[in-house]
């Protein structure tokens, strides 16, 4: 990744970017923790119990919870780690990382919409862990959409 050489020293704009991407990195870190936990459960052959509800098992034990034998939670962990990495690099003025960050979040958002659809209309069960993860992705998407114009400009340039 190329580092932005036209650094605007410590202007308000770069400070805003640092705060923006740090917040995104923090959200991704929470998602990474949750996804890692679910992956560990999967590898142990355990069922995630959501306060005595069977819904988590229905969702996490379903065929939709795996892609080619790989747990979706594991893929989620990778995705969160990627978002975290891009956000950190973007916070340190790596310009290309900003684009990767946006695309990674948009992809995760699309996958999240699909997973919500599956839970609502195919499995008729909602797993609270998945809903929490969906909330994190919505937050990240919200950040991408609502980020200040100055950051959007620097991301597009």
């Amino acid at each position, binding site marked *: 990744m190329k580092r932005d050489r036209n650094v605007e020293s410590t202007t308000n704009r770069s400070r805003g970017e640092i705060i923006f991407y740090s917040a995104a990195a923090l959200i991704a870190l929470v998602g990474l*923790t949750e996804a*890692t*936990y679910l992956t560990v459960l999967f590898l142990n052959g355990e069922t995630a119990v959501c306060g*005595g509800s069977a819904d988590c098992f*229905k969702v996490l*034990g379903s065929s939709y919870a795996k892609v080619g034998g790989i747990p979706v939670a594991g893929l989620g962990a990778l995705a969160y780690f990627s978002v975290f990495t891009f956000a*950190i*690099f973007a916070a340190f003025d790596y310009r290309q990382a900003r684009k990767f960050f946006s695309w990674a979040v948009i992809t995760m958002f699309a996958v999240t919409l699909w997973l919500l659809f599956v839970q609502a209309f195919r499995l008729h069960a909602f797993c609270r862990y998945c809903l929490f993860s969906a909330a994190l992705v919505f937050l990240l998407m919200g950040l991408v959409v609502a980020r200040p114009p100055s950051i959007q400009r620097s991301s597009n340039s």
Partner: protein
Amino acid sequence: MRRSAPFVIVVLVALLAIGGGTYLYRVKRAANPQLKISKQTNAQTGESAHALGPADAPITLEEFGDFQCPPCGKLSEPINRLQKQYNLRVIYRQFPLPMHAHAREAAYAAEAAGRQGRFWQMHDLLFREQVVWSSSTDPRPLFSAYAGMLQLDLGRFKQDMDNPDVQRQVELDQKRGALIGVTTTPTIFLNNQAVPPDQLSPDKFPQAVEAAVNNAKPSS
């Protein structure tokens, strides 16, 4: 320093995630021993009960259990440990209590798994996941999911759950229990001697088994 900072942070987080995940995996692995996939079901000829361990074991532990009964669930893992420790013969008999809404269906699920040689694996899974399926309004999809986890033929499993022979087997176990005075679960016999209910807790039961093992040892 500033140039290398993002690399350091990312590598640190990667190490933390991998390290934390591995640690959690090990802790959970130790807390939840693997299902007894490799254990042999040792059914006696002419006896329909499910039995584990050598037929000539000095101690036979016969349990009348209900998969939805919480004390049975709490005793399940200690019994597994004791079976290994003392090489006991363990016999499980179905005694689903009417007050437990899904106990009978769970018993059918275990029997149906037994028809594919996976009774004990399903037995362990049903006790381990008791809190999950017990609170479900319709546990059948969960039982099917468990059957999938145990790599059973799902179509056959579903058919067997509704098979009158499987259901009759559960009734036979219950009748046998009623004949010898079983009214509650768990009721456990050690060499045909009923274990007093106050000793049926996970901390006291091992002592009862140890005492039975010591009594069964030939005096030298």
